[in-house]
């Protein structure tokens, strides 16, 4: 049974879920994706952008993280504005209703199962959209491979580029911003993106506006 958590900051009520999430991040981004600068001895990937304002989106199924993502307000220093400002050729967003979507993570076992790689990514888009809508977030800023422009567009989003595709650690990355709109949900249904069961829950969070 899949349970979706939206956990603000380091909420102690969800310490166990957060622990799973940070371990998942270490597996996904350090061990698998090779972001060695994030390596930590305790195998929990946590950085300076995990703050009290952060929303951790964690979908857990049978004790294992299926998808993870992080949302941060753009009104405080965030990954694009602090680490990759050179990815932006347009003004870097700084607005209450615009949040950054980072650490897009999907479980490896789900991705390596034949050609099923897009199922988990669809689920990731669904979880993130669901939580962002709940929070009243209008737009999400993200940086990823340019194929994410195609994926997001295909699911009914309208991503706008903030900069040119640019090499980062031997991979091409583009920064983009897109609105979060409810019409993406029927499009996701049409593409067979797994739906969130009724039991999915989000923790009560302060609305973004």
């Amino acid at each position, binding site marked *: 049974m899949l349970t979706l958590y939206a956990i603000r900051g380091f909420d102690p009520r969800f310490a166990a879920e957060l622990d799973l999430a940070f371990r998942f991040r270490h597996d996904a981004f350090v061990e698998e994706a090779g972001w060695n600068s994030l390596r930590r001895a305790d195998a929990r990937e946590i950085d300076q952008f995990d703050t009290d304002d952060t929303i951790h989106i964690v979908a857990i199924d049978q004790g294992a993280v299926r998808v993870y993502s992080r949302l941060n307000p753009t009104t405080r220093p965030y990954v694009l504005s602090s680490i990759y400002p050179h990815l932006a050729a347009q003004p870097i967003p700084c607005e209450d*209703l615009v949040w950054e979507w980072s650490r897009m993570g999907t479980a490896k076992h789900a991705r390596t199962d034949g050609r099923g790689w897009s199922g988990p990514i*669809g689920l990731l888009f669904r979880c993130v959209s669901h939580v962002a809508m709940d929070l009243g977030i209008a737009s999400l800023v993200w940086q990823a491979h340019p*194929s994410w422009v195609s994926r997001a*567009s295909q699911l009914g989003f309208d991503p*706008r*580029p903030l900069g040119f595709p640019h090499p980062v650690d031997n991979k*091409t990355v583009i920064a983009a911003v897109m609105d979060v709109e409810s019409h993406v949900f029927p499009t996701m249904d049409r593409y067979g993106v797994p739906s969130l069961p009724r039991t999915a829950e989000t923790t009560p969070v302060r*609305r973004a506006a």
Partner: protein
Amino acid sequence: MLKLVTQAFDLVEKLRQSSTVAEVETTFAGIAADSGACAFIICDIPPGCAPGAREIHSSGWHPDWERKYLERRYAEVDPVPNSVNSHNEPYFWRDLIVPTTRNAPAANVMQEARAEFRMHDGFCIPVHGLEGVAGLVSLATEDAAWSLSEQEQAAMHLVGLYAYEAVRRIKRPQSPAAIVRLSPREADCIRWLAEGKTAWEIGAILGVSEATVRTYLKAAARKLDTRSQAHLVARAHRLGLIH
């Protein structure tokens, strides 16, 4: 510097706002010509099918080459479209490794394009969406010494992706946001809201009651799928519904 680079974001915006494939083709033809290409193609690669089996939008190719390409089913052996699945990043045709002995038909297609139709090189942008969705945007040049700087390649990558998405969106519309229309009164209310006016003040300006203003704003919020007044103003602005 090429217009491609200096105006990349305007070109993307133009492609995003295009409502017909012809518009996309015209815009992209300008980009192609400006960067030294003589022809381009935007096409799908449906799963299990030859590239372009479903949708092809192209411009500038020699009609004899197009006919021959289709008749002889060159898409099945041409290394340019057949490299899309193995490439995440754009590539020049010249950089494809085409074994001449084992895969002679591939080399022959490229040789024929060069010798008979003066297409000496090209630049191909692979498109990878979710499962089963792939395509390409490819440009050809008659200039044997054609090159694009890293910045130009990045800009072409960006603009090419958006040309592909524009065609896909127009052919398979599924975004209600694309057809949202506000009534002139609704737009007026949002414009005044953006100026910081209250519903009562907007009513006084427009000569209607405060309740009527709230009705307009509620209708607009429903159309734009927004949760707050700030959200409404931001979304309306972004969709170009107010300026």
